[in-house]
């Protein structure tokens, strides 16, 4: 029982982390129609920047400065690269950001090497928040979850309760009208892109210390984020939240499970057959955990192609 409780908690926090990255992606997509393939690269940049800054400034300042630096990178990318190719259409923008993700990953490899760097959380944060049946639960996980929730509330308030939020939301629906009313829409776009990048950078700076910081982290997380976005429906914040949690929780439940498809088939009297066939049927759920989100995605595609909360195309 405690095992399941731990798994649920871990899953929720991993889901919140996924949400932190997919929220920025969804925000940018909803606003500019650009699917930013390099979004997960911003997550990676956040982790590496924080790793570099940590010895100089200490952990706290590092996780504040790293997202700001990433925001700077994001703004430069939007201003000097994306705006330049905007006239060629959205597919072209997607390709350019795809190229950027390659360039960023290769630069990281050049500067920091191909292997994981030693980015760790500070000793004062490395303690158990509580323990259940003798197993300690790290405080830092709760801290990551707290940051994600705090960020979600901040964005929600910013978008719904402030003047800036009104301009941003209206620029999503009627950019020309907003421009006619005297607002600088390209500036708004640049700001949203920068904030989206900063959110990913913050997620990276915080999570990189707990998980590993290596040049593959962008791809690994990026694929998950894309799955989240397909499952949840692009442009829908609620969908992104639901899908992130769904995938986070199934993932961490599966990691701790010994369930096999063959066991299920034993119930209907086909156990022997399954053992003979082997392959997928006799694989433990725990080793399949990494592939589970993809199966969820395929299922959603068959049952509800527009995503859990997405609008029809």
């Amino acid at each position: 029982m405690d095992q399941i409780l731990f798994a649920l908690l871990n899953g929720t926090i991993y889901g919140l982390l996924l949400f932190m990255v997919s929220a920025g992606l969804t925000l940018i997509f909803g606003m500019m129609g650009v699917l930013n393939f390099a979004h997960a690269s911003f997550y990676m940049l956040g982790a590496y920047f924080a790793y570099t800054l940590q010895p100089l400034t200490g952990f706290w300042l590092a996780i504040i400065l790293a997202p700001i630096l990433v925001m700077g990178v994001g703004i430069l990318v939007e201003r000097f690269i994306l705006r330049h190719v905007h006239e060629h259409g959205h597919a072209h923008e997607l390709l350019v950001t795809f190229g950027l993700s390659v360039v960023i990953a290769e630069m990281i490899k050049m500067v920091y090497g191909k292997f994981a760097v030693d980015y760790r959380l500070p000793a004062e944060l490395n303690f158990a928040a509580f323990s259940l049946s003798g197993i300690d639960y790290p405080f830092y996980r709760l801290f990551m979850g707290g940051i994600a929730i705090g960020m979600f509330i901040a964005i929600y308030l910013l978008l719904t309760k402030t003047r800036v939020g009104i301009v941003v939301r209206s620029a999503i629906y009627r950019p020309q009208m907003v421009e006619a009313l005297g607002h600088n829409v390209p500036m708004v776009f640049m700001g949203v892109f920068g904030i989206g990048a900063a959110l990913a950078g913050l997620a990276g700076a915080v999570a990189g210390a707990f998980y590993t910081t290596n040049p593959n982290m962008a791809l690994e997380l990026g694929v998950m984020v894309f799955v989240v976005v397909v499952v949840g429906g692009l442009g829908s914040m609620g969908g992104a939240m639901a899908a992130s949690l769904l995938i986070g929780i199934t993932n961490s439940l599966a990691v701790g499970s010994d369930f096999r498809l063959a066991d299920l088939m034993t119930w209907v009297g086909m156990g022997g057959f399954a053992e003979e066939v082997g392959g997928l049927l006799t694989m433990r759920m725990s080793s399949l955990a990494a592939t589970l989100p993809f199966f969820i995605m395929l299922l959603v595609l068959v049952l509800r192609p527009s995503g859990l909360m997405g609008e029809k195309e």
Partner: protein
Amino acid sequence: MKFGPLLLLITVAVLIALPWLVSGSMLNAAVQMLISALFAMAFGLLCGQAGMLSFGHAAYFGVGAFAAVHAMNAFGGEGLLPTPLLPLVGGATGLISGLLAGYFSTKRTGVYFAMITLALAELMHALAPHLKTVFGGEAGVSSFRMPAWGIGFGTLNDVYFLTLVWTVLCIGLLYLFSKTPLGRLALGLRENAHRLRFLGYNTHALGTLIFAVSAMFAGIAGALQSMNIEAANYVVLESHISTAVVLNSFIGGVRVFLGPAIGGAVMTFFGHVSSDLTRVWLLYQGIIFVLVMMFLPRGLVGELVERIRNPSGDGIAHTLSTLLMRLASLAITAFGAVFLIEFLQRFLSPEYRAGVTDGNWPDISLFTYDWSPLSMSPWAFGLGLFGIGIALVTMVNRRVAARKEAQA
């Protein structure tokens, strides 16, 4: 375009004569170039003609590679088919997996499609190490090419000709495919899928079919690859294979028929040549791709074809001089950039850092000179060249713009 077919004939003739013209290592590179040209063409069918951007084409390449290896090992090493026909197995497996994957991925269009293809490829990659019987785990599956039809298939020349015949044949088939009604409908799918649906076509089935055909040719390319190295490892399912085909095809230009093939062959050639000169070839490839996408959205071949078809009307002398000035200023910029990147790479490499002993920074040898990283000279040299190059590029662009204005 009357010299088009002539140029094609000359290319094929040179390719046939190649084993007598170049060294063994170059011939090996040529085999790789042919394979990546075919792979890029398969990708180009999907992406250029049907407008569906796949980020996970390595999956079908890999499936074809493994199918060919297993077919070679079938019947105790006798092989399922004679060696020259084995790519058919790769093609068939690619087709079947393409039908399956295409069914799911073409349920959505645009960016969703791209994300689903990526996720499917990652699914394969995550699953492969666990399915030891099929993918052979860490070690992969190896095999031998058996002699068939009086050909030994033991020498590089035999492998080269096998690859050449299959590549030329497949590219020819792809060309014919683009002329069939299904091939024409692919263009319709790219331009206006709504209208196609309105006309009564089943766009989902159409997309699935085109996806499957593309996956089939990718599978053939994969089969040729694993027959070349007589092994397949689940590394062929990794994302960098998918990435490379996207970059190569777009650098060549996906909207002109042979663009992807030329892009694939040229980039593979440079990758081969530069592999002992630089360690950051992938970085250059990425930068070239971003620059091409920003400034030559048609791709290199696409831009060339466009310029030949619609000359600027400046006359040959002006066009040539502009081109030369552009190339010269770009060469200076590129040299500055390459110098900086290579210097940084050497400066940051673990070997160099291991050689640093308290405050003593040894010189770095680059382009026959030794540079001290603490002095200004290497940084100023690289940055200076880069800056001069950029200034020259802007100057040439201004002059061209001014002349255009004067004409108008």
